[in-house]
């Protein structure tokens, strides 16, 4: 019997030792889990950001391709205390939502941006803006009437001078802004006007005008590209980066920067992560490394605000960037705050309006 016990004790000790050394191995081999876009963005990020990051810090990055439903997933994780992600991409519209629900750790700017070099409007309490993307009007130039050029939302609304099928995104966000711009509201007053009942009516009334000419209301960026490339529609707002797909497949298409809606994407740290230090290190790396970012935008036109980003950039490429001064000037900055506050009520009216 005692023999058996001794045997048992030996096995137990051996197990403990093995388990202990496995723990040590894990500690030496640091790894953070990052939830970010899949597809091309994931592929390019691996090459441009994660590889060099591991080289610089020794921390590996385990990438989880983010689904459209990442906010519900995040909330479920934080609520259950089982946080699987250490850092994550957050869209401009999801950011206020996550803040309201308390799903993010506060950013320690003494570590991320100690010299205060990032623009003030990119430094949020619970996230750092790392990239900009715009919803801009994309025009099939081969379908334009001879000698004409579409230059604004007013032109998009002008079905007599610019005949042809059009599409819009099937959500109220950005569309109400576009309608007000088409109706002559100056860009800086859009949200002031939208905040009033009359302003909202005005936007919907303007949308009434274009409604019969809208072939379809797209729900994903991929769909908008498909619509333009199939010739299903000639004029359609989409994300600025999507133009590359069109042009590289030989479709003559052009961005109208004027009146575009610029959105910021944030990088944030889920509340309760076990790797806060490493995650903060990654946030710093992702938002302030100008040379990495310059290389990144040669693959994808989603630039951030790393100090010195445009120094030495090919001017032709710079002209394709939403944050390039000439482009940024003619766009408006989409207000995530406005939509966080009003989306529920407006969306109901929007759905009702679509069904009419």
């Amino acid at each position, binding site marked *: 019997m005692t023999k058996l016990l001794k045997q048992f004790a030996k096995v137990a000790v051996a197990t403990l030792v093995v388990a202990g050394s496995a723990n040590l191995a894990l500690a030496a081999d640091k790894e953070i889990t990052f939830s970010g876009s899949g597809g091309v963005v994931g592929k390019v990020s691996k090459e441009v950001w994660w590889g060099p990051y591991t080289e610089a810090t020794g921390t590996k990055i385990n990438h989880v391709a983010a689904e459209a439903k990442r906010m519900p997933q995040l909330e479920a994780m934080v609520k259950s205390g089982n946080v699987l992600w250490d850092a994550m991409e957050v869209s401009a519209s999801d950011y206020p939502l996550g803040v309201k629900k308390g799903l993010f750790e506060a950013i320690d700017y003494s570590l991320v941006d100690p010299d205060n070099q990032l623009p003030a409007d990119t430094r949020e309490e619970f996230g750092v803006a790392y990239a900009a993307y715009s919803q801009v009007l994309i025009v099939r130039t081969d379908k334009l009437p001879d000698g004409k050029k579409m230059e604004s939302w007013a032109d998009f609304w002008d079905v007599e001078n610019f005949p042809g099928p059009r599409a819009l995104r099937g959500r109220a966000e950005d569309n109400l802004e576009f309608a007000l711009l088409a109706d002559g509201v100056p860009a800086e007053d859009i949200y002031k006007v939208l905040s009033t009942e009359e302003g909202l009516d005005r936007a919907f009334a303007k949308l009434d005008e274009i409604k019969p000419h809208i072939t*379809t209301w797209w729900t994903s960026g991929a769909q908008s590209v498909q619509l333009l490339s199939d010739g*299903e529609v000639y004029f359609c707002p989409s994300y600025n980066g999507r133009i590359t797909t069109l042009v590289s497949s030989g479709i003559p298409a052009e961005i109208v920067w004027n009146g575009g809606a610029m959105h910021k994407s944030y990088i944030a740290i889920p509340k309760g992560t076990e790797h806060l230090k490493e995650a903060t290190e990654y946030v710093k790396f992702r938002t302030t490394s100008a040379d990495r970012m310059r290389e990144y935008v040669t693959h994808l036109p989603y630039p951030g605000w790393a100090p010195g980003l445009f120094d030495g950039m090919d001017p032709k490429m710079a002209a394709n960037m939403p944050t390039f001064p000439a482009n940024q000037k003619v766009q408006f900055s989409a207000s995530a705050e406005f939509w966080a506050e009003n989306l*529920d009520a407006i969306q109901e009216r929007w759905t009702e309006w679509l069904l009419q």
Partner: protein
Amino acid sequence: MNAKKKFTSTWLLWPALFMLVAFFLIPTLDILRASVYDPEFTTKHFAKLLGSNVYLDVLWRTIRLSVIVALICAVIAYPISYFIVQRPRKQQIFFLFLVFIPLWMSVLIRSYAWMVVLGREGMINALLIGLGFTDEPVKMLFTTGAVYVAMVQILLPIQIVTCYSAMTEIDLDLMRAARILGAKPWQAIRRVFLPLSLDGTVTGAIIVFMLSMGFFITPALVGGRKDIMMANLIEFQVQQLNWGFAAAISIVLLIGTVLCVIIIKRLSKILIRRLVGGGHA
């Protein structure tokens, strides 16, 4: 002996029962809870839902679309199933295989395929213009008609298989007996085969109906602006993290579906009784 037999047969059901309780009943109850506790007891979600025209309007559209899809599927699948049942055994397997092939493709891909077929510059329009039937492309994509076409194509195999398996249960000698007793071929089908096979058709139609009630990708891709389904509204609310309201919409959708299924069953029973008894020729 009898009791023992009974025990073994119920025992076989346990895994299925466990799955149903763990992965269906409990989550459903949890959704019901989420719709009225947020976090304290509240009826605000249901009040908002019933206080606005949008949600009931969309529920009605969803039901109407699902009923029509189920009806079209039933009508198309019936003769196909009848045809397959009449074949020799080996051919039956081959035809069923053909029916199953489209099921191996994802719904998303099949929906996109319909966009290629029905689009402005798509296959049908290219053909029509090429043959000189029309100069301007016909608008087929982004219409409610396109939703019917795509959803029927996607759900038809399910209807055929259910209908077929019900038909294989029918003893074809019964029809022969009816003929011997003086029934005309059409009467034999209507008074004997149709009532016996209708149960399977109704079961298939109910499955198709329930699946349609939850559809959202296909209508969003090929439908027009009015082809909004309840599932689209639920998806939107979940994305906004409005769990309570999303749960309330789900509960309304669930109740609507169950009520419709009960009505369909009732109606089909009346129909079968009429077919067997009434209509002396």
